[in-house]
């Protein structure tokens, strides 16, 4: 049976753990050669994605996205970092901040596959809905 992308990624993760320097380089080269031999070089991008997911999971890193209407200052960012860490029970957060004037105000926080929509636009929408009802 053909191994799945996930299985390749998992294998790479298991191999590279606790490896450093030249040793690590060799493993990665071997892995690339293996992919070529198995005709799986096309799935390289997907395998890298999977690898990142596994890495994040194993090291308790959470990817987060903060969308705000205006650029946030460092103090707020720091506070949010801590907050997300607590929410996600993670050791580390990789925050990707975005500015979207379209949400008018407030914040939208996404981490893992969860979302907290505290944006002003969605509030207005629910206000509209409740008045319509």
């Amino acid at each position: 049976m053909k191994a799945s992308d996930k299985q390749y990624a998992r294998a790479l993760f298991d191999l590279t753990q606790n490896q450093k320097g030249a040793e690590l380089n060799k493993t990665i080269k071997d892995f690339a050669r293996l992919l070529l031999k198995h005709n799986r070089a096309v799935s390289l991008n997907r395998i890298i994605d999977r690898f990142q997911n596994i890495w994040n999971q194993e090291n308790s890193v959470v990817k987060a996205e903060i969308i705000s209407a205006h650029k946030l200052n460092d103090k707020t960012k720091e506070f949010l970092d801590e907050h997300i860490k607590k929410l996600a029970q993670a050791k580390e957060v990789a925050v990707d901040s975005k500015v979207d004037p379209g949400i008018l105000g407030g914040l939208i926080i996404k981490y893992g596959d969860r979302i907290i929509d505290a944006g002003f636009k969605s509030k207005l929408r629910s206000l509209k809905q409740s008045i319509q009802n």
Partner: protein
Amino acid sequence: MSSHAKDFIVEQLKKQIQDLEFDNQERSFGKVIEVGDGIAKVSGLSEAMMSEMLEFKTERGSVYGVVLNLNEDSVGAIVLGDSSWIKEADEVMATKRILEVPVGEDLIGRVVNPLGAVLDGKEELKSDKHYPIEKIAPGVITRESVKQPVQTGIKAVDAMIPIGRGQRELIIGDRQIGKTAIAIDTIINQAGQKMKCVYVAIGQKESKVANIVAKLEQSGAMKYTIVVVAGASDPASMLYIAPYAGTAMAEYFLDQGEDVLVVYDDLSKHAVSYREISLLLKRPPGREAYPGDVFYLHSRLLERSCKLNKDFGGGSITSLPIIETQAGDVAAYIPTNVISITDGQIYLEPDLFYQGNRPAVNVGISVSRVGSAAQIKAMKKVAGKIKLEAAQYRELAAFAQFGSDLDEATKKQLERGKRLFEIFKQDQYAPVAVEDQVLIYYAVSNGYMDDVPVERIKDFELALLNYAHDNARATLDRVKKSGQLEEKDESDFQQAIQGCKDILDYLIKKND
């Protein structure tokens, strides 16, 4: 506008806004990976539950869906609505709710789609009660045996294949043979029988549904009926949830201790729509390409029909599922499944139909596993003989085709049988009240119709009923009310039959 009115409006708005609570709730979300044919594959949503409702946020508004597949890192969902609105990478929110439909008295007399949206152009539903469409069927301790009758008003059915409240009786036959007609007649006959009805149209032509609704309206049956429509042009997902939604609406009345009749028209199309969904979700196909759980699809639906005992309200859901066969093939996959689930079947045959026996019920192979427990005593008394005579006639009729010399007794039995089968013929939309049926069967089984020519039986039957309505109303009412056929009633019946014959002697053959 006066300033007073303006103040009032502002005040109202203020109040509404004040009451509004914003929730910054944490929700599970995912992204659409793939969408098409009414099916969406969604990434993320790691906490999604089976059959949970999903909200697809699209540019043109929200579309809802239901989780049907939970994969390792994606979720397969059916889309209830326009899937062309959904684009790849649209956000999907989990709602933590099982799909629900509005229920309540409000729905009576309405035509709705499986999500409870009105289709008849009248005002919106006000109902604030909702029931989940999928529910585990009532357990053993809550149930009781079926014993009250459902009067279908169809002579052949009420006498030979009695249906009880809480029973599941399959109506099976080829296309265009009168399956729906039996169900609709039954609904029409429920006027004044303390019965609510739900008619679920699954994959029917809209024109056919419109005809049915018009007919129900015309006969006053919409006063106690809900029509749930998932038409032929609706996506398979709508067809799939339609019978469950209809049952949920029925369950509301069940919980009020009422009796409900649900017609699923038809479950073959339901199975086909589920097959479509399953194949698109890449579930492995089995026999006739149906998925492995197609039996469970129907068993969990029909198991929700029940008769509850007094402690649990005493309500009931009777169901009349309909199955369309291909060229009379009852041994196909879906027909055998549903036959084994239900408590009996009414089998309609093309040969009978074209011979003019309508309804084309084959009383020989149609059965009701509840039996005479679901008949009133009076009917039981007359129908017992009828069953025997019908069976004997069928046997003899096969023989009589060869022979010419038949003895007197056999000839008599054949003649009786012919008249009996003539009685079984009945027009559409013309249900017969149970007490009238008792009178007719009493007359035929006791030989009072033997001297009426076979081709005149229909006229005689009509005349007898008219005569009895005028001259023996009290007796008929008594039979209806008590459900018994006492000796006195029998003699009243004899009198009525004789009286009718005296007037109608031109109908009756002279025996010189």
